């Protein structure tokens, strides 16, 4: 069996599961946000129950339209807060206590190897980076899980991605995943578990792995996963999770994969996904002359400390282009504070960037950085669909924080090597 099949078997009480099989699995953590939780809450409230069976397994984070962008979004956040209070959901993260969900949950120790996590948000697949099975579901699924503790799942086929070799300078997890999506397309891993392996993945930080698994959905994947190793176990040490709870699985030597992709990372340059699909990738050297109006560094994909450190390394002592807005969004309050202590915020402000509180805002064209007609933005986010960040005639280019910072300085898409 693959690591994914082993985790799913454990959670449905079977010795073995096979791809295509339908299971009802036990859920360890169920996540909702200010957009998806209100629909789930409506369903749960209809049942007039006094308690949820497992409030400790529910995590609620209002992060999409927060700080509340208007009356309607304020109301949705209020619905979430009232529900958390009523059902004694202690894992409710108010503005100021949390941040962007997929950066927050790993940071708070909710995620560890062998768990099964569902979230009413497509980027829930992020958590596979710590050796868990995690997948995005809908609001009705979230309601069902809150009521029953379970989820229906089809056991996915697994697809293996082997990254060998040594990373070039300025090449990060973001580039590795964009490269793979460019190779296989936005439905290239349709319904599949994407298993990331190889020497380059072993050497990748937890932050880099979270970025990679975060974008599994952009290839149509059900989940992304990195088998737990020393890096994983060292990272989760800080949470003092009882050893009996941590299930370190590894794929068997004879595990079946529907497809295997092998990449030599030494051949991979920093990548840029052009409008309007994440698969529309090019090496940065072939980006041509694309003038930009805005750069965003942040999101559940790339708003972690490592991302901010890379951006600061490039922006230190430089100024962003005068006709370009640069928005930097630390993904959580803890990341924000640490970045402040390290002096990164001073570098950003001196460079002429604006620092936003943690929010998903601009990535979904919600607020805090919406694009006008005809504007072009390079963002470290995960989707560049038509109108994703604002006007239908605006454009979004996806890249790493390194490319984003370099592009902010140049005012156009740029290779970090050009400015360093």
């Amino acid at each position, binding site marked *: 069996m693959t690591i994914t099949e082993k985790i799913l078997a454990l959670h449905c009480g079977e010795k073995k599961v096979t791809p295509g*099989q*339908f*299971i*009802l699995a036990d859920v360890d953590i169920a996540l909702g946000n200010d*957009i*998806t939780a*209100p*629909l789930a809450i*409506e*369903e749960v409230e*209809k*049942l007039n129950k006094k308690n949820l069976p497992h409030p400790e397994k529910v995590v609620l984070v209002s992060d*999409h*339209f927060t700080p509340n962008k*208007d009356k*309607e*979004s304020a*109301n*949705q956040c209020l619905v979430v807060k009232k529900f958390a209070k009523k059902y004694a959901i202690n894992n409710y993260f108010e503005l100021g206590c949390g941040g962007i969900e997929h950066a927050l949950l790993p940071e708070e120790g909710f995620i560890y190897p062998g768990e099964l996590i569902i*979230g*009413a*948000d*497509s980027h*829930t697949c992020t958590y596979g980076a710590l050796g868990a099975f995690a997948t*995005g*579901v*809908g*609001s*009705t*699924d979230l*309601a*069902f899980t809150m*009521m*029953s503790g*379970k989820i*229906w799942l*089809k056991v996915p086929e697994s697809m293996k991605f082997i990254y060998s070799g040594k990373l070039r300078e300025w090449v990060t997890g973001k580039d590795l995943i964009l490269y793979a999506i460019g190779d296989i397309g*936005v*439905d290239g891993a*349709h*319904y599949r578990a994407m298993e990331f392996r190889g020497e380059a993945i072993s050497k990748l930080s937890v932050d880099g792995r979270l970025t990679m698994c975060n974008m599994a*959905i952009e290839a*149509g994947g*059900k989940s992304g996963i990195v088998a737990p190793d020393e890096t994983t176990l060292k990272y989760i040490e800080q949470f003092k999770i009882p050893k009996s709870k941590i299930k370190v699985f590894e794929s068997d030597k004879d595990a079946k994969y529907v497809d295997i992709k092998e990449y030599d990372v030494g051949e991979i340059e920093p990548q840029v996904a052009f409008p309007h*699909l994440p698969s529309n990738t090019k090496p940065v050297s072939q980006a041509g002359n694309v003038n930009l109006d805005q750069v965003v560094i942040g999101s559940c994909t790339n708003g972690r400390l490592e991302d901010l450190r890379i951006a600061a390394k490039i922006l230190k002592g430089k100024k962003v282009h005068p006709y370009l807005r640069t928005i930097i969004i630390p993904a959580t309050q803890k990341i924000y504070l640490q970045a402040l202590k390290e002096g990164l915020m001073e570098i950003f402000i001196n460079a002429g960037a604006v620092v936003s509180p943690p929010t998903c805002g601009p990535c*979904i*064209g*919600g607020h805090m950085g919406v694009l006008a007609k005809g504007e072009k933005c390079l963002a470290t986010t995960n*989707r560049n*669909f*038509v*109108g*994703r960040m604002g006007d*239908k005639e605006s454009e979004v280019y996806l890249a790493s924080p390194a490319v984003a910072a370099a592009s902010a300085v140049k005012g156009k898409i740029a290779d970090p090597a050009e400015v360093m």
Partner: protein
Amino acid sequence: MIIKGKAHKFGDNINTDDIIPAIYLVTTAIKELGKHCMEGIDASFPSKVKEGDIIVAGKNFGCGSSREHAPLAIKGCGISLVIAESFARIFYRNCINVGLPIITSQEVCKNINAKDDIEADLLKGEIKNITKNKVFHIDSFPPLLQDIIETGGLIKWYLKGRIFSPKK
């Protein structure tokens, strides 16, 4: 259940931002969401839909976010069935869970043009293109999903206690 309506055609990789842009995700009211259905591609779409009409699309329909507002917006504007060559997985499960009928079939999609009159008998698994005078037969859902669909969606399935004796 027999569904009758005209076909509205869309291409590959229609994403959830196309189906319902994120700025409208500040409500859970189905009719309100329906007013903005497909706004990312064609803002006049809701005005073109007659109750019962059908969406016919290419590969990977519903890719992108997990927003259940996408199938709800489709329902809310009067669409009764989506037929696609393939569906993105979260969209697919959302449809099963909220009771928006869907059919996956490359053959059917290739044989329907925009504005064709379609009749679908979901229980029999039969799709008729009345305009072209063609009939297609489709596979039934896996037993667990069929059970959820027949019970009227995931919440009803839970309330009826099916969770303790699921079909596998």
